[in-house]
């Protein structure tokens, strides 16, 4: 299970400073912030803007343009289920419906107990062993309902 630091301006400034030296630093910085804090809160935007000499609106525009960047902290576990064609062809939509029903979750939502966030992803390159997913960064292929449930149970138990 990924462990994230609690958001702090000082922590964020250190992360930003570490990555702001490279050319075109915005994405490297935003990835690093999300890796450390699990998300990119609005409070990060002025810090990034100052470091890159951009307006806050520009940084906001960048953060919201890319699907990867979360505006809010995720649950303790993150399931990214592939919704693209190769997974659709192998029953991916039914798989997604099943897990959404079981957890009572919309896409990009987190269970009430903060245990799991469900996110769509459009292709993990696991198209010859579809349907596929990524659970807490671990890749999963040839999924069906029971296999996905087992992986979720294992992850949740590990966290309890």
């Amino acid at each position, binding site marked *: 299970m990924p462990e994230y630091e609690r958001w702090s301006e000082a922590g964020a400034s250190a992360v930003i400073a570490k990555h702001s030296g490279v*050319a075109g630093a*915005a994405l490297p910085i935003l990835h690093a912030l999300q890796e450390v804090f699990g998300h990119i809160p609005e409070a990060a935007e002025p810090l990034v803007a100052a470091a890159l000499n951009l307006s806050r609106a520009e940084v906001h525009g960048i953060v919201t343009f*890319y699907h990867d960047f979360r505006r809010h902290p995720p649950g303790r576990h993150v399931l990214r289920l592939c919704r693209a*064609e190769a997974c659709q062809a192998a029953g991916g939509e039914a798989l997604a419906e099943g897990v959404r029903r079981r957890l009572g979750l919309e896409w990009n939502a987190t269970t009430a107990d903060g245990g799991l966030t469900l996110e769509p*992803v459009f292709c993990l*390159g*696991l198209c010859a*062993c579809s349907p596929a997913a990524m659970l807490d960064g671990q890749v999963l292929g040839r999924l069906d309902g029971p296999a996905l449930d087992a992986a979720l149970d294992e992850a949740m138990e590990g966290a309890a």
Partner: protein
Amino acid sequence: MRRLRLYLPADAAAIAVGAQRVAAALADAAAVRGMALDLVRTGTRGMVWLEPLLEADSAQGRIGFGPICAADAASVLAAILDGGTHGKALGPVEQIPFLREQTRLVLARCGITDPLSPGDYAKHGGWKGLVRAKSLGPAATLEEIVASGLRGRGGAGFPTGIKWRTAAAAPGEPKYLVCNADEGDSGTFADRVIIEGDPFMLIEGMAIAAFAVGASQGYVYIRSEYPHAVAAMRAAIRIAAREGALEGFALEVRVGAGAYVCGEETAMLDSLEGKRGMVRAKPPLPAVRGLWGKPTVINNAISLASVPWIMAEGAGAYQGFGLGRSRGTMPVQLAGNIRHGGLYECAFGVTLGELVERVGGGTASGRAVRAAQVGGPLGAYFPPALFDTPFDYEAFAARDGLIGHGGIVVFDDTVDMARQARFAMEFCARESCGKCTPCRIGSIRGTEVIDRLLAGDRPALQRELLADLCHTMKFGSLCALGGFTPYPVLSALTHFAEDFTPRAGARAAAE
């Protein structure tokens, strides 16, 4: 202690189906027998339906076992050490028809070597192309690539050598080289497999390209959905730099952030510059004014990975493979509902039907094949009636399709083609960079029109509207995201018209 060497892929697809558990179980089983296990983690051979595929040396070359699971570890080890049969035994791996029939130029080492061993790379023919390029000089290297007939494998099929020539001749310093490994098309994974399985080959290809055009800085833009490839590439670059293979050329990995449109070359440049991935109008071509306004060659990973072979064996040898203006080989990706899913490298010219039915073995579900989408989310859906189309840029274009990055996604007869058409519009709407109206708004209108059509709301009018909308998107969009989304939509509508009849329950959804 007796030592045993075995080979098991560390490719993301192998890991996704349990390779790490197999590796751990093998270590345990070897310990029980008092043996030291030397488990070489290779790339994948590309026979993904057989993963995890374990290999062992034998008098007949490497023999395989697959697909194996952790519970098979002890019995497979016994079969290898004590002889005897095993239910998962596949015999000599290179005799498996799927592998034997291929022309593996870019996949020559994949699944055989340790991807991060520079010794393995050199021993299996690595660096020969770079050495020859250096002896020929930049201009002759460039002309060799022109003569090979290599066309971009990212989708557009533009002649690689011509692009290099333009960048080499363009004024401006420094010059940049960008490897496009964003691989956003569903049904494609060849870039990923090559980066994970033979990263030095891509580095060699980039070193040759940089030498030919005079680029001093290179970027490999890899999608964030590929963490294993990102790690492999970063490690390989560190090793190659240490080995002195990158003199005068700084190479760096950059990670995408989940935006499909950033695979489009000009959006990628904006993304690399630290901006939103907005498509730029062309001209100017990136080769003339690209990254930070400087001449920039941007090529797909497979295009660049094809370069070492061409330089080592010569343009003529590469020209010897293929059909018409499609020269050389393509690592075709067989995906979706297919029995033998994986990566199959062959010369251009093989038909779609051969790939789907003979090589791929039809559907995994055992039902009839109804459609194959070729070339990713912007590619057309082909019905079996068109499976005689040869894999060739022009032949696919002639049938209102494209081969794109070489992905084939197979669907069985349970597919709802109206739903696939709607998804194409939905995906375009989700991923549009927003710069041009036909793509940004047209795609949303597209989903609405399809919903009304399925709801039975003046269907003849909706069909007309959809055709008109597709026409506008095709000719009015700034890039191929909006421009090619009509391919899957119109191909579904043309070849699978019966799926677009009004249906119960759709009316409410459309309102």
